[in-house]
């Protein structure tokens, strides 16, 4: 070594002489050569050049090339080399300018390859320490948008800790960026199916449950920051923005996945724990549950999408009142009728859905809220509220249209519970409303049965004008009526008609109590007579029609049999016989016959009940005279 070289070595320890090459660059260059078929020396040169190039002079080609080299290194299985490069002090300039390009390939490698996990994570950590937070965020958002649908949860879990670190470094616009991050990730997670059986949840095949918990953990330092700010008693717009973003996160979580999940307090699954996290975050950011549930405090945040928030708040009500999450810190001073009133809006919101998970929660919340009020206590005025009108209507639709049996069964229980809680006038109004807006004989018959029970109660102990006074008449008009007069289809309306005849029979048996109000009795008799007269006409018309149908069917069978015999004798084509189209078209003749037969039996049944009613009327008249 000459003197000059010795001097250089003293002053510039990294000075390369002759064949000495920086090992980290060498490693990269070797890989690049292998995979990109670039000349190793060329790569080395390029990288050296980059080291000396200020950031402003770097071109897009440089960024792309750097990314390709890094990716090549990884695909060659040598993450360690890349890590060394990135950690090397001398390369910090390059990493700072162009390091973000490595993020996507590194995350990809973490997700796909268990083997190189540690190196890659360490490399990413280094990037987050050196690169500018803005550039990092841009890259992270880009790779989130382009997430592989098959690797949503793995990718999310891989980037969350890094994302958190980057966001915490932000000096300004932190709230907005936190908001963007949460919304981007939740958007991806919403693509994953929500488990709804215990097995599915435990398996967590798509990783949704794990990601939810990870997201909750992710938000922790930001919530801590909000808590600390509060202590100083002066909140800045930045704090308010951060609070709004966290609140949006909670609202989105409540709708997806929590509203779809099957939560069970006996089995504290991962999603249950996530629900608890959300319920704890809300008071931590100073959003009281009573404010959200009762006093519409979300209206302060106009940026929220209202269709989202209605579902979210409904879920919140369910989690609090049915699953009892954080109920012990909820004020125990509210009037149960008021709580029911507020919950009715949420119940109605969920009842309007067709999703099983939503309906289950609606019915549970409905039942729970009703159970807290005394029987016969809800005043009739409540029925004027939109939600109190709509919820039972929606419930009725579940009872008649929902294909899921257990929902119809629970629904019926809630329906009866609702009736039980109304006071006498309320019941009266409700029955009238249901009968007027009727579209299903089964429901009607259920209402008529309830009316009978109320009259019975009124007679026994609780006489009131609604069920034992003149007010009973408008109700009876609705019960003892045929919707299409003499042309009413007796079969579809059978349930209601049978029940109303039963009611009539009951009223006649209790004539003593009813006659004590002569005006009532007189009107009742008139209504009865008109009804029975119409019903008799209707029955005889129906009977005639069905008998004719049966006869036509028999004739048709005979004809078919005859022609079948003829056909076996001749090879001629038999002309198809057209049968008069009727309801029982798609059934076999035997079944058709049975249906018609049972229709006639039904008419017999109705008629025998009418006869019995007439008998009782005669008996009573006889006794009076």
């Amino acid at each position, binding site marked *: 070594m000459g003197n000059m070289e010795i001097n250089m070595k003293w002053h510039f320890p990294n000075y390369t002489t002759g064949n000495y090459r920086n090992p980290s660059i060498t490693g990269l260059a070797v890989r690049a050569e292998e995979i990109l078929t670039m000349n190793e020396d060329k790569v080395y040169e390029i990288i050296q050049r980059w080291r000396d190039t200020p950031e402003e002079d770097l071109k897009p080609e440089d960024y792309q090339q750097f990314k390709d080299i890094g990716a090549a290194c990884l695909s060659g299985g040598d993450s360690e080399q890349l890590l060394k490069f990135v950690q090397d002090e001398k390369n910090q300039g390059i990493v700072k300018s162009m390091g973000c390009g490595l993020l996507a390939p590194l995350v990809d490698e973490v997700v796909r390859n268990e083997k190189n996990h540690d190196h890659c994570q360490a490399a990413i950590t280094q990037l987050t320490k050196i690169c500018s937070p803005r550039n990092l965020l841009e890259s992270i958002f880009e790779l989130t948008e382009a997430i592989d649908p098959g690797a949503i949860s793995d990718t999310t879990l891989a980037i969350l800790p890094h994302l958190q670190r980057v966001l915490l470094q932000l000096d300004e616009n932190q709230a907005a960026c936190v908001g963007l991050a949460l919304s981007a990730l939740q958007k991806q997670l919403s693509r994953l199916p929500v488990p709804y059986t215990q097995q599915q949840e435990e398996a967590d095949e798509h990783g949704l449950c794990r990601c939810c918990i990870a997201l909750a953990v992710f938000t922790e330092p930001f919530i801590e920051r909000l808590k600390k700010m*509060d*202590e100083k*008693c002066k909140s800045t717009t930045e704090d308010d923005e951060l609070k709004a973003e966290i609140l949006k996160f909670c609202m989105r979580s409540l709708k997806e996945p929590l509203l779809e999940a099957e939560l069970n307090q006996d089995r504290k699954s991962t999603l249950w724990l996530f629900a608890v996290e959300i319920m704890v975050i809300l008071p931590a950011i*100073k959003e*009281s549950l*009573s404010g959200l549930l*009762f*006093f519409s405090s979300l209206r302060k945040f106009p940026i929220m999408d209202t269709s989202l928030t209605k579902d979210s708040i409904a879920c919140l009500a369910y989690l609090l009142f049915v699953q*009892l999450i954080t*109920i*012990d810190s*909820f*004020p*125990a*001073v*509210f*009037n*149960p*009728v*008021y709580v029911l009133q507020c919950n009715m809006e949420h119940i109605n919101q969920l009842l309007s859905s067709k999703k099983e998970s939503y309906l289950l929660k609606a019915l549970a919340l409905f039942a729970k809220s009703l*159970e*807290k009020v*005394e029987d016969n206590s809800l005043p009739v005025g409540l029925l004027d509220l939109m939600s109190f009108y709509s919820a039972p209507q929606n419930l009725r639709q579940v009872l008649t249209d929902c294909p899921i049996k257990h929902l119809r069964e629970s629904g019926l229980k809630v329906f009866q519970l609702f009736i039980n809680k109304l006071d006498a006038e309320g019941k009266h109004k409700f029955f009238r409303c249901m009968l007027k807006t009727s579209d299903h004989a089964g429901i009607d018959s259920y209402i008529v049965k309830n009316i009978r029970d109320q009259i019975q109660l009124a007679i026994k102990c609780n006489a009131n004008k609604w069920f034992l006074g003149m007010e009973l008449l408008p109700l009876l008009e609705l019960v003892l009526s045929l919707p299409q007069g003499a042309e009413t289809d007796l079969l579809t309306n059978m349930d209601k008609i049978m029940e109303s005849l039963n009611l009539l029979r009951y009223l006649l048996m209790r004539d003593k109590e009813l006659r004590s109000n002569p005006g009532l009795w007189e009107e009742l008799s008139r209504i009865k007579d008109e009804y029975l007269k119409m019903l008799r006409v209707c029955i005889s018309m129906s009977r005639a029609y069905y008998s004719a149908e049966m006869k036509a069917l028999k004739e048709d069978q005979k004809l078919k049999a005859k022609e079948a015999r003829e056909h076996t004798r001749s090879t001629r084509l038999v002309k198809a016989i057209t049968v008069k189209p009727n309801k029982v078209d798609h059934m076999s003749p035997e079944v058709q016959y049975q249906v018609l037969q049972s229709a006639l039996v039904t008419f017999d049944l109705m008629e025998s009940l009418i006869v019995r009613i007439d008998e009782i009327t005669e008996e009573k008249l006889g006794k009076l005279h």
Partner: protein
Amino acid sequence: MAAEPTREWSDEQLKSDDLPKKDVIKFLQDNAAHSFLNEHKLLGNIKNVAKTAKKEQLVIAYNQLFESKRFKGTDPVEDVTELVKAVKIEEKPKEVKAEAVDEGPPKYTKAVLKKGDKTNFPKKGDPVSCWYTGTLEDGTVFDTNIPTAAKKKKQAKPLSFKVGMGKVIRGWDEALLTMSKGETARLEIEPEWAYGKKGLPESKIPPNAKLIFEVELVSVD
């Protein structure tokens, strides 16, 4: 027995407009037996009787009094109690409605622990804010919104709602309307005006529980 009163006015004088009805009524009330007055509907406040009685009726009554001689003291003694009763019936008070429209006496008691400003009382529908602690009779605290650490009270907010609207248990609604801003009171609420037969088990309130609240009315808007 008192001497028979003298007949002061002649028929002509009675019928004359110069003689006000009130004078005739007064004479009759002073001198006629209670039963007589009752029959002729002359009992009660003179002004009221004057409104309802026509002059002709009073003339007739006056004459009949002297004819029948049913002066004061001619009724049997028992009628004294009837007198008292009859007066009450005739003197129909304007306000017939009983004060307690609902169930009777209030089902809570209030003991003032710290006086309020005695000026700002909330009305029905006013928003109010309170700090409170609720305990059962056995001393169990079932609810409070007062944070344990003193410094945290700066961050916590009192419970706010519109009073007298049925949003809270009746004991609270009724009691708060009697409190003024700044007042702290101890309320003992019977179950009928709290959570009644059902209680609120998830908040540790058993059925038929009497609740004790210490409430501070922080603000009235």
